[in-house]
């Protein structure tokens, strides 16, 4: 599709124009080391950091989400729907890995029966992605066929220091671009191609560039029974950090908060790394941290691909590489399983 551009120095005008119509979320610095998506307000600058601490899944699958309210009196119960319809909003500057994570989550939450709260947020969102000018040493999105230089979404964007380039990819994207067209001029494909080429050069030199996932769909049992899991999991403390920062981890819990006769039922993130996750009256089928650790990686590299035509449920964002207190992560798992094959 057509490419548009605006001078980098006009970026704040673009944000203001978008924010005049709908909510705009932008990754901004929250500390020296970390960035996070925040509702844009006048004066906010887009972060120069590579990616946000927490993933963009929060927009569609928030950490805590109300489901229903109940009132219990004697033998009667009243059920009140506590869901909220989403307003239109724009996520600006999502990276290619996070954009792909939406596809991964779609295959869970939009499969029948559709998760209505996820769906309303997806329907009301417009995703403007941003190519990664400087992909980092914990990045390996390329392992999963993701191109950090063409980040996808409803509009994909690049910048080359002087200009910001925008290419709408969907109807929603066209609509967004139309709404701010007075700020834009025609962009040149050549300039974009140069940015893309530069990024590809960096990607090829990354330490994890050669990492390729194996197709383990026919090896579900073999992989499960691999002796490697003992060693890989031996130091895992089951803190769950890797699952919470992960853009594709989607496990949740449903709990009631009781306040007299009023009860609020909500769902919240949960983690397969926790012992209670599968606990039943007769015990749990995942007795030690080894089984729980194995579950997380089997799900991403084997179970999910079996269900989804070979698509992996890891997008190579590298967040778990940075956040695990014992420096264990999916890259080490992939390498260990590969050694064995």
């Amino acid at each position, binding site marked *: 599709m057509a490419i548009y551009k605006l001078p980098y120095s006009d970026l704040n005008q673009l944000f203001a124009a978008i924010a005049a119509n709908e909510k705009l979320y932008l990754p901004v610095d929250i500390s020296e080391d970390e960035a996070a998506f925040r509702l844009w307000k006048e004066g906010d600058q887009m972060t120069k950091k590579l990616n946000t601490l927490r993933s963009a899944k929060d927009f569609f699958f928030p950490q805590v989400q109300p489901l229903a309210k109940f009132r219990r009196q004697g*033998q009667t*119960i009243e059920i009140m729907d506590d869901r909220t319809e989403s307003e239109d909003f724009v996520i600006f500057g999502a990276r290619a890995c996070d954009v792909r994570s939406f596809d991964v989550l779609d295959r869970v939450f939009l499969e029948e029966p559709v998760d209505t709260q996820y769906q309303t947020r997806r329907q009301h969102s417009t995703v403007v992605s941003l190519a990664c000018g400087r992909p980092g040493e914990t990045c390996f999105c390329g392992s999963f066929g993701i191109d950090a230089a063409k980040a996808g979404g409803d509009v994909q964007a690049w910048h080359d220091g002087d200009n910001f380039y925008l290419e709408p990819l969907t109807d929603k994207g066209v609509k967004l671009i139309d709404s701010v067209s007075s700020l834009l001029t025609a962009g040149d494909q050549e300039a974009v191609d140069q940015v893309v080429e530069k990024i590809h050069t960096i990607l090829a030199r990354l330490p994890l560039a050669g990492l390729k996932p194996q197709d383990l769909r026919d090896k*579900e049992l073999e992989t*499960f029974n691999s002796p490697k899991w003992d060693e890989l999991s031996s130091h895992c403390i089951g803190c769950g950090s890797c699952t919470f920062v992960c853009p594709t981890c989607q496990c949740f819990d449903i709990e009631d908060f009781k306040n007299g006769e009023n009860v609020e039922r909500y*769902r919240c993130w949960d983690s397969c790394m926790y012992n209670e996750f599968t606990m*039943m009256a007769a015990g749990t089928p995942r007795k030690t941290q080894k089984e729980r650790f194995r579950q997380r990686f089997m799900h991403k590299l084997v179970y999910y691909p079996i269900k989804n035509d070979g698509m992996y449920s890891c997008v190579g964002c590298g967040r778990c590489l940075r956040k695990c207190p014992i420096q264990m992560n999916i890259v080490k798992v992939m390498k260990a399983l590969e050694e064995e094959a």
Partner: protein
Amino acid sequence: MEQEALIPKLGVVTEIRRETPDVKTFRVVGVDGKKMFEHIPGQCAMLSIPGVGEGMFSITSSPTVEDYQEFSIKKCGCLTSWLHAMEPGQQICVRGPYGNGFPVEGEFRGKNLVFIAGGIGLAPLHSVINYCLAHRENYGHINVVYGSRSKDDLVDYQEILDSWQNAPDMDVFLTIDREQEGWDGHVGFVPNYVQEVGLDPTETAVICGPPVMIHFTLEGLKNLGFQEPQIFTTMEMRMKCGVGKCGRCNIGDKYVCKDGPVFSFDKLGELPPEY
């Protein structure tokens, strides 16, 4: 927004029967007095009392019952104790039905069937047995082998005596674990009894009960010449959503709440042994 699967509908418990010292059967209808949904034998539903808990339970009544659904529930924790303590007339939150159910209109059609249950394991089989009896012409001979700790722990004992034991082309074999006054039937464990009652290895078998009972019964059936594809069971894992999204009830790539709870042993054998 459309109807959300995770938000329950309101039902009423109209009748509560004690089955055994720790199992009661609950009859549930919608607030309009009608059956809340249609189901397939072997399917389950989520029952909840807000602020107390939510849990998955097999639907024990047959789909052929037109007016209500029933659940046989063992007292074992917070929600189940609350349900055991409540009175009829109590409203209850219900969502479902969930799961695949038994292939009553598929592999089971035209077959001789044997149902083998231990304890509360009769709950999911109750629905399928009564369904087969209601469509008698579609199925061959029916055997039921059922055992519990004691006579008092046999679920649906009265119905078994009154209805199943007199049904044509059906044999019921009951057993209890230990000798007991007032019991002149068989004494012994289900897996052993299964070997003795003269089953024909061409029958299609369904096993449901505690994991050890399933394990040894399966071995027993294989000794008799049964093959894994003709033996079915229902699995139980921790559940929250019931719709294949919360990520906790999986065995390998299968979600028990959605792809199960009914599995044949050949299919189960292809999955990681994590249950």
